[in-house]
C-alpha cells in the first residue's frame, strides 16, 4: 500500500438499530383470541404511555438479528485463541439436549418428585466434578466463575468465624484475574498481592513473609495466569495452612490438568470450576456460565443451599435446605441448570479417558504453537514449559518498530483470526496470551502462526497496515474515549 493512500474499508455495510426499522402499526406478535372477559387495570396502577419498543414484522426481525450475527465472530466462525478463556468447540449435541422440554420446560419450584431426572443429573455431575478436582462435595449453584469465587470466599469466612478467628486478608498473586481481588473485597477481606519470581512462579519466600495470622487464605490458579505450573505448589499450600489459612483454587485453567493431577491433592481446600471454559458450555457472547464450587470435607457444612441429596434406601433425589451452617443462597433458584446439562454431557461423553486426552491435547497444542512464535514476539517466560496456554510479549517488536500488541491483534483480525488476549496479565508488558485449546488442528495452529509472522514482518515493511487495521470488519477501530466521554447508552 502506498504511504498516505486512503484506507479502503472492505467490510460489509453496517446495520442500523432495530428501532430504525420500526413503523407504527407493524407487528410480529400473535396471540390466541381472549376466551375470558377483559378486566380493567385500576387507573391508579395503569401505564399511560406505551413503552418505545420497536414495531417490526417477523421477517424484518429475522433479517436484523441475522445480520447482527454475521457481524459477530465465534468459535464456530474460526480460531479463537483468547487466553484464559478456553474457547474450545461447543458440542451441538449439548445444545440439542438442553433444549428438550424435559429440561427446558421444567419449573424450578416443581416438587422434587416431578424433577427426579434433573436432580439425578445434578447429583451425578456434582460427584464427577468432585472426582475431577479431588473435593468432597460441591455446589452447582453459582451462575458464573466470579459468583463461584465469592461463594468460596464466603465459605472461607464462615469457616474462620466458626473457629472463632478474626482474619482480614486474602493473598492473591499479582498476575491474578481482576475478579479475584474484587471477590475478595466482596467477601469482606482485604486483597494482598503476592509477587512472582523471575521464572513466573509464586515467590514462595515473599509468600512466607506475607503469611501471618491475619491471613484468611490464598487464591491461586494452577497452572497460573502465566500458563505455568506452580512447581512448589505443595510448599505454597503448606505455608498458608500453617497460619490457619485456606487455599482457594481458581479453576480458570483446569483444562490443563484434567486427569493429570487434582487441586485436592495439591492441598487446595476450595475449588471453583468454569464450566464454560473447561467443560465446553458455550460462552454465549459473555454468559451464561456456571461456576460450581467444590470443598474439602470439613468445609461441607458451609456449602450453599439448596443442595441435591439422595436417599440411599429409596434412591430418590431431593433439594435439601436443612443445613444450619450454610452460607445461604447464591442464586434465586438452583443455578444455571441449562448450562449444567451441557456440562454433564461433556463430562460423561469424554469419560475418564477422554478428559485426560483433553488435557494432553490442549497442552500439546499450546506448546506446539509456542514453538512457532516469531522471534519478535517471544515467550515472556522462556524457561518455563507452558501448559495449556502461554504468555508472549511484543516488547521486542515494539522496541524495534513501535508496533504494539494491540496493532498485531487488529492486523490478525484482517488476516481472518480472533486475536489472543492482549494486555493481560498486567504484569507482562505488551502481553499476548494465547490458548489454542485441544479442538484445533495442527494446520490451524500453523496457519495462525504464519499470519502472526506475516503481521510481524509487516511491522517493519508496511507498518501502516497494522496501524490502520482492521479494515475488513463492519467497523474499524472504535473511539473508546468518545464512548466514555459522550455517554450514549441507549437509543
Amino acid at each position, binding site marked *: 500500500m502506498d504511504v498516505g493512500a486512503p484506507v479502503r474499508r472492505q467490510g460489509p455495510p453496517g*446495520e442500523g438499530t432495530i428501532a430504525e426499522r420500526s413503523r407504527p402499526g407493524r407487528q410480529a*406478535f400473535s396471540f*390466541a383470541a*381472549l376466551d375470558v372477559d*377483559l378486566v380493567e387495570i*385500576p387507573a*391508579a396502577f395503569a*401505564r399511560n404511555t*406505551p413503552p418505545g*419498543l*420497536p414495531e417490526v414484522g417477523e421477517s424484518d*426481525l*429475522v433479517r436484523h*438479528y441475522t445480520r447482527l450475527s454475521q457481524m*459477530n465472530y*465465534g468459535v464456530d466462525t474460526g480460531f*479463537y485463541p483468547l487466553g484464559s478463556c478456553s474457547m*474450545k468447540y*461447543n*458440542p451441538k449435541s449439548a445444545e440439542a*439436549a438442553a433444549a*428438550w*422440554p*424435559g*429440561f*427446558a*420446560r421444567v*419449573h*424450578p419450584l416443581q416438587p422434587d418428585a*416431578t424433577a427426579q431426572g434433573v436432580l439425578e443429573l445434578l447429583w451425578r455431575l456434582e460427584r464427577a466434578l468432585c472426582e*475431577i478436582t479431588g473435593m468432597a462435595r460441591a455446589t452447582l449453584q453459582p*451462575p458464573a466463575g*466470579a459468583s463461584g469465587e465469592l461463594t468460596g470466599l*464466603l465459605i472461607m469466612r464462615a469457616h474462620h468465624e466458626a473457629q472463632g478467628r478474626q482474619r482480614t486478608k486474602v493473598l492473591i498473586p499479582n498476575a491474578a484475574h*481482576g*475478579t479475584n481481588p*474484587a471477590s475478595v*473485597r466482596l467477601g469482606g477481606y482485604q486483597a494482598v498481592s503476592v509477587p512472582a519470581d523471575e521464572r513466573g512462579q509464586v515467590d514462595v519466600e515473599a509468600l512466607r513473609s506475607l503469611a501471618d495470622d491475619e491471613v484468611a487464605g490464598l487464591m491461586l490458579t494452577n497452572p497460573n495466569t502465566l500458563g505455568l505450573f506452580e512447581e512448589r505448589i*505443595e510448599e505454597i499450600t503448606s505455608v498458608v495452612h500453617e497460619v490457619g489459612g485456606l487455599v482457594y483454587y481458581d479453576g480458570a485453567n483446569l483444562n490443563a490438568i484434567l486427569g*493429570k*493431577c487434582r487441586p485436592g491433592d495439591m492441598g487446595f481446600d476450595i475449588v471453583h470450576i468454569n464450566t464454560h471454559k473447561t467443560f465446553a458450555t458455550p460462552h454465549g457472547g*459473555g*454468559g*451464561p456460565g456456571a461456576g460450581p464450587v467444590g470443598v474439602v470435607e470439613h468445609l461441607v457444612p458451609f456449602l450453599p443451599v439448596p443442595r441435591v441429596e439422595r436417599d440411599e434406601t429409596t434412591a430418590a433425589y431431593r433439594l435439601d435446605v436443612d443445613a444450619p451452617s450454610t452460607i445461604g443462597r447464591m442464586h*434465586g*433458584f*438452583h*443455578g444455571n441448570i441449562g448450562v449444567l446439562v451441557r456440562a454433564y454431557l461433556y463430562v460423561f461423553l469424554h*469419560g475418564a479417558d*477422554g478428559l485426560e*486426552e483433553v488435557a494432553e491435547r490442549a497442552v*500439546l497444542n499450546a506448546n506446539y504453537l509456542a514453538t512457532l512464535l516469531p522471534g519478535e514476539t517471544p515467550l515472556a517466560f522462556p524457561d*518455563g514449559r507452558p501448559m495449556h496456554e502461554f504468555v508472549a510479549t511484543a516488547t521486542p517488536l515494539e522496541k524495534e518498530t513501535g508496533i504494539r500488541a494491540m496493532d498485531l491483534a487488529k492486523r490478525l483480525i484482517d488476516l481472518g483470526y480472533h486475536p489472543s488476549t492482549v494486555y493481560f496479565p498486567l504484569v507482562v508488558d505488551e502481553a499476548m496470551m494465547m490458548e489454542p485449546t485441544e479442538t484445533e*488442528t495442527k494446520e490451524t495452529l500453523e496457519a495462525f502462526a504464519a499470519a502472526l509472522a506475516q503481521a510481524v514482518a509487516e511491522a517493519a515493511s508496511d507498518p501502516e497496515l497494522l496501524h490502520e487495521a*482492521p479494515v475488513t470488519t463492519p*467497523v474499524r477501530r*472504535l473511539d473508546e474515549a468518545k*464512548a466514555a466521554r459522550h*455517554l450514549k*447508552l441507549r437509543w
Partner: protein
Amino acid sequence: MRFAPHTDDDVREMLAGIGVPSLAALFDQIPASVRLDRALDLPRGVSEMEIMADLRRLAAGNRHADELVCFAGAGAYDHYVPSVVWALAGRSEFYTSYTPYQPELSQGALQALFEFQSMVCELTGMEVSNASLYDGATSLVEAASMSRAGTRGRVLVSGAVDPRFVETLETHGKGAGYAPEVFAAVGGRGGSPEVGEDVAAVVVQHPNYYGVLEDVSAFAEVAHEGGAKLIQVFDPLSLGVLAPPGDLGADIAVAEGQSLGNHLNYGGPYLGLIAARMADVRRMPGRIVGETSDVDGRTGYVLTLQAREQHIRREKATSNICTNQTLMALAATIYLAWLGPEGLAELGRQCAAKARYAFERLTALPGVEPLVPDAPFFKEFAIRLPRQAAGVRDAAIDRGVLAGVPVRGGDGHGLLVAVTERRDRGEIDALVDAVGEAIA
C-alpha cells in the same frame, strides 16, 4: 467421542517440533508427589448416541410444562416463547463468541446489547441499564451495593418481597458487612419502613411476592424523605399495562428477566435486569455498552465506563461480575422486538383477564379464600386453601395440572397461582376442577 482432531502423525510431528519424546513429558513439571497415579474414577467415554440416550432417560424423569399445565410462578413463568427467539439467539455466531474484548469482531453482540439496554430503559421508564446480570435475586444484591455509601449502610426490605431474593441478599450481605432488615408486610402488602439517616435503600416489590399491586410511589416518598433510595423489584411483562418504575419514583429497578423469551430451565440460565438514573451510572455494576464511532466516522459499539469494573479497579470494584447472561439478554431483546408496544399491552391484558377468571373461579370453591382480601393483582395471586397447599398441589399433579407454588411461611395453606397468556379457559377450568377435587 472426542473433539480433539489430532491424528497419530500429528501428535508425533508436534512432539518432535516441541522437542519432547512423549505427551507425558509435557507434564514433567508437575511434581510427582501431586500427580494422579490412576485414572479418574469416572466411566470411560461414550459415543454421542449413548450419551444422548442417557440424557433422554434423565429428561424423561421430569414432568414438564408441555404435559403438566403450569400455573406455577413465584419468579419463573410459563410465558410463550415464540420460535423466532431461539432461531436467532441460537445462531452459533452469537452463542460461541465471548465477551466482546475485540469490538470490531463483536459488533453483532455489542449492538444487540445496546438495543437490550435501550429496550429495558423504554420498558422501565428509567434512564440507564446494563448488559444484564445473573438473575433477579442477584440483581437486587447489586442494587443494594449501588445504594450503600458512607454512613448509609442499612437496607430495609419489605416482608412482601420474594423470600428467595431476601435470602440471596442475606448471603451476599455477610461479606459486604450488612444484613438486610425485613420490615413486616401488613396484610400481604408492603408495610411501613422507618427510614433513618443510616438507611441506604428501601426495597419493595410490585407486583409483590403475593401478586399484590403495591403503592410504590408512597414507598418512594418515605424513602426519599429519609434520604434513601427506593429499589423496586418489578415484573417486566407487567409493564405493558402497569405504570413503569420510572414513573413511580424508583431510583433503581431490578427484575428477573426469565419471562422475556427465556425457557423455565429448572431455574436457570435466566437473566437479571437493572435500570437506574443517569446520576448513578458510575455506580452501575457489570458490562455497559456505549455507542461511539470508528476512525472513519461510522457508528459502532464498545464496552464503556470500564473504569468501574473488576478488571480495571480490581479490589476497589464494587461488583465482581464479569461473565453475565448475554445470550439470555439477546433472547430478551428479540422477544421484546417481537412483542412491540402493542404486543406487550395485549399480553398484559390477557394475563390480567385470565388471572382474574382463575381467581374468581377458585375463590368460588367452598373453603377457598383470597389470602390477601380485596387486593388488586396482575397475573399472580395467592389463595388460602382449607388443606395444606403442598398436598393439594400434589393431588392436582396427578390430574395433569401444576396448580401453583405453596406460599412460604404462614400455616402452609397458602398457594400462589400464576396465570400467563399461554393458559386458555379450558386449562383454567381444569385447574379449578383439580383443586376442587383435592380439597373435597
